C-alpha cells in the first residue's frame, strides 16, 4: 500500500511536471486553405508538405539552420515555447467553398490566423472573410494583383507579384548594362489572358520607368498552330532581349520556330509557366541553350540552409522543393515570425506585428530582398532569382551573390 501511494505520488508529480510547460505555452492555431484535391491538388499537397516541414522547423530545435528566425529554439520563444498547430482544409479550387471554409475555420475551429489559398480566385474570397472577422490572413503565393489593394487591414502577402518580377528584370538589365552589355530595346510577347496581359503590362510599365524602350509588344492567342508572324516581327525589330509570357505548347513552338526562321536575339527570358513546364527542357534543350527563366527558390550549395531544408522536404516527400511550395513556406515563416514577436494569440496584436515585419535577406530561404509589408499588405521587398538553361538544366545565374553558374550572354541557342 505504501508502495502504491508512492507510485501514485510519483505519477502525479510526473504528470504535474510534464503539464507545467504545456500549460504555460499555449499553442497557436493556423488555419490553412489549399486545394488538396481537384485540378491543382498536386500543388496543394506539395505546399501542405512544405508547411509541415516549416512547422517542424519552428516547433522543434533546429540550430543547424543558421539565421532562419525561430529555427534554433523549440516553439515560439516569446511565448514560452508555444507550438504552432496547423489546421488544413481543402477548398478544391472552388472560391465559394474557400469562403465557407474560411468562415468555419474562424468561427468553429477558432484559429488565430489564416493562410492560403493557392488559386488567386480562392485567396480573393477567403481573404474577404478574414477581413470581416478581423483575423490576419497570410496569402502564401497567389499572384493576382487585386488580392491586396482592396483597402483591407488584415491581408498580407509574402510572395512576389507581376510588378515584382518586372522590377527584377529591370534590375537585371541595369546590371547587365553596367557590365557593358548592350540592352537598347526589349520586346514583350504575351498570351492574351489575364496572366499574360497583367505580367506584360507590368513589364512595359517598369521598362518605361527604367527608360528602356519596348521595341515591340506582341499579344497573341494561346495554343497557336503557328507563331511565325510573331517571330518575323521580332526579327524585323531586332530587340536585344525578348521576354515571353507563354504557356507550354507556345513556349516550345516559339523556340522551334526561332530556329526554323534563323532568328536568335542576344537573350530570351521566359516568365516561368511554359519555360518551367517539365516538357520544356526535353523538347527544346538542343535549340534554346541559354534561355533564361525565373525562380525565387534555389536549393543552394550543400551545407547551406536552403540545402538542408530541401533535404528535410525530400525526406518527407521524395521530391525537391519547388518554387511554388517554397514561396508558401517563406510566407509561413514570415507569419510565424510575426506571431512570435506579438507574443500573443490576439489577432489584433499579431496584425500589428505583421505590419512591423522586417526580415533581411539572410533570414530568408528565398531570393527576396527581404519581407516588409506596405499598407496594402504586399511584401515590397519580394523579388526573384534568374536562372538560365545550360545543357539540360536550369542554373542560377543572377544575382551574382547567389549564382551557382556563370551567365552565358549572348545565348547560344542551337549553336554549340
Amino acid at each position, binding site marked *: 500500500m505504501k508502495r502504491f501511494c508512492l507510485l501514485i505520488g510519483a505519477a502525479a508529480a510526473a504528470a504535474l511536471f510534464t503539464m507545467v510547460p504545456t500549460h504555460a505555452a499555449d499553442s497557436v492555431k493556423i488555419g490553412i486553405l489549399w486545394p488538396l484535391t481537384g485540378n491543382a491538388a498536386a500543388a496543394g499537397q506539395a505546399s501542405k508538405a512544405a508547411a509541415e516541414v516549416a512547422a517542424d522547423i519552428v516547433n522543434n530545435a533546429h540550430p543547424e539552420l543558421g539565421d532562419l528566425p525561430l529555427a534554433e529554439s523549440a516553439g515560439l520563444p516569446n511565448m514560452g515555447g508555444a507550438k504552432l498547430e496547423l489546421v488544413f482544409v481543402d477548398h478544391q479550387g472552388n472560391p465559394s467553398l474557400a469562403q465557407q471554409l474560411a468562415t468555419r475555420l474562424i468561427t468553429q475551429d477558432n484559429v488565430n490566423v489564416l493562410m492560403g489559398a493557392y488559386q488567386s480566385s480562392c485567396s480573393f474570397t477567403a481573404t474577404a472573410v478574414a477581413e470581416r472577422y478581423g483575423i490576419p490572413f497570410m496569402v502564401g503565393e497567389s499572384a493576382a494583383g487585386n488580392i491586396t489593394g482592396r483597402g483591407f487591414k488584415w491581408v498580407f502577402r509574402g510572395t512576389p507579384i507581376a510588378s515584382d518580377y518586372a522590377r527584377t528584370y529591370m534590375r537585371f538589365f541595369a546590371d547587365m548594362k553596367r557590365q557593358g552589355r548592350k540592352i537598347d530595346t526589349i520586346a514583350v510577347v504575351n498570351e492574351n489572358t489575364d496572366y499574360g496581359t497583367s505580367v506584360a503590362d507590368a513589364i512595359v510599365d517598369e521598362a518605361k520607368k527604367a527608360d528602356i524602350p519596348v521595341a515591340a509588344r506582341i499579344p497573341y492567342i494561346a495554343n497557336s498552330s503557328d507563331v511565325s*508572324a510573331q517571330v518575323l516581327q521580332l526579327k*524585323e525589330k531586332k530587340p536585344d532581349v525578348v521576354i515571353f509570357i507563354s504557356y507550354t505548347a507556345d513556349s*516550345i513552338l516559339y523556340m522551334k520556330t526561332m530556329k526554323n526562321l534563323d532568328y536568335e536575339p542576344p537573350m530570351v527570358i521566359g516568365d516561368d509557366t511554359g519555360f518551367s513546364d517539365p516538357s520544356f527542357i526535353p523538347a527544346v534543350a538542343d535549340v534554346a541553350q541559354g534561355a533564361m527563366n525565373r525562380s525565387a527558390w534555389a536549393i543552394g550549395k550543400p551545407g547551406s540552409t536552403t540545402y538542408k531544408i530541401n533535404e528535410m522536404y525530400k525526406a518527407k516527400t521524395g521530391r525537391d522543393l519547388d518554387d511554388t511550395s517554397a514561396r508558401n513556406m517563406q510566407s509561413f515563416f514570415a507569419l510565424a515570425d510575426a506571431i512570435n514577436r506579438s507574443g500573443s494569440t490576439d489577432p489584433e496584436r499579431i496584425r500589428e506585428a505583421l505590419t512591423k515585419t522586417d526580415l533581411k535577406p539572410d533570414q530568408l530561404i528565398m531570393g527576396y530582398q527581404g519581407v516588409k509589408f506596405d499598407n496594402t499588405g504586399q511584401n515590397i521587398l519580394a523579388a526573384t532569382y534568374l536562372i538560365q538553361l545550360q545543357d539540360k538544366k536550369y542554373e542560377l545565374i543572377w544575382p551574382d551573390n547567389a549564382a551557382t553558374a556563370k551567365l552565358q550572354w549572348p545565348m547560344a541557342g542551337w549553336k554549340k
Partner: protein
Amino acid sequence: MLLVQVIVGGLLLGAIYALFSSGLTLIWGMMNFINFAHGEFVMLGMYVTLLVVVWLGGGPATFGFAAAFTLFVLGVVVYLSLIRYVLRGPMLAQILSTFGLALLLRYTAFWVFSANFVSLPQTSLSGTINIGGVLMPVPQLVAGLIAIVLTVGLHLMLTRTAVGSQLLAVAEDRSAAMLMGIRPDRMQALAWGLSAGAAGIAGALMAIAYPWSPSVGETFGLTAFVVVALGGFGSVPGALFAGLIIGLIQALSAFWFGPIYKDIVVYALFVALLWLRPQGLMGKA
C-alpha cells in the same frame, strides 16, 4: 523579302491544314458524315509516331507507314464496330456518336500518355532549307509535298479506278450500288480506313513540327472543319486549295495586323464567302 517569307510560311502552314483536313473531307464526301473524332485520329497518329521513334528507333519512312497503317486499321474497326450501327439511327445520333468517340479517344490518351506535352526527338526530317534567303523548315516542306501527293492520289483513286468508282457509287446511291453487286459495308469500311490512314500520315508529319498533348485535336480541329467547308463538301482538291488559302490569309493578317487579329480576318472572310457561295469554293451546288 520579309513578305516573301511570310507568304511562304503561310503556304506551308496551309499545307499542314490541307493535310490535316484531307481525311475529313473524304468521309464527308463519301458518306455525308461528319467525323468529329478526326482530330483525335491525327493525335493518335502523332503518338504512334512517337512510340515508333522512341521504342523502335524508326526513321520517317517507318513511322509514316506505321502511323498510316495503324490508323487505317483503327478506321476500319471504328466503322465496323460503331459507325455501321449509328448510320441506321437519326442524323443527330450520327453526329453525336463521333463526338463521343472523340472524347473517348482524347481522355483515353490523357490516361495512357498523361497531359504533358511531348515532342519528337530530332529526326532526319528536322532542319531548314534556305532558298535565296527564304527559309523553309523541312518538316513543313515535306508535309506540304505529301499533302499535294495525298490529295492528287486520293483524287485520282476516286476518279480513275474501279475501287474509286465503287466508293462513289455507294456514296451516290447505296441501294443502286448494291444492285450492281457492290458491297456498301466493305466500301464504306475502306473509306473510313483511307480517311483514318490519311489522318495517320498527317499526324506523323505534324509530330515532326509541333509539340503536342492529347488535346492537340482541338487546336487544329476547328480549322479543319473550316477548310473542308471552304473547299467544298467532299472535294479533295478543294480542301487542299482551301487549306493553302487559309494558311496564307492567317500569315498575312498576323503579319500586317498582329497575331490576335488573324482568326478574325480568316473567319470574317470565310463567313462572307459562304454567304456568296454556300457550296464552298469547289463544291457542287
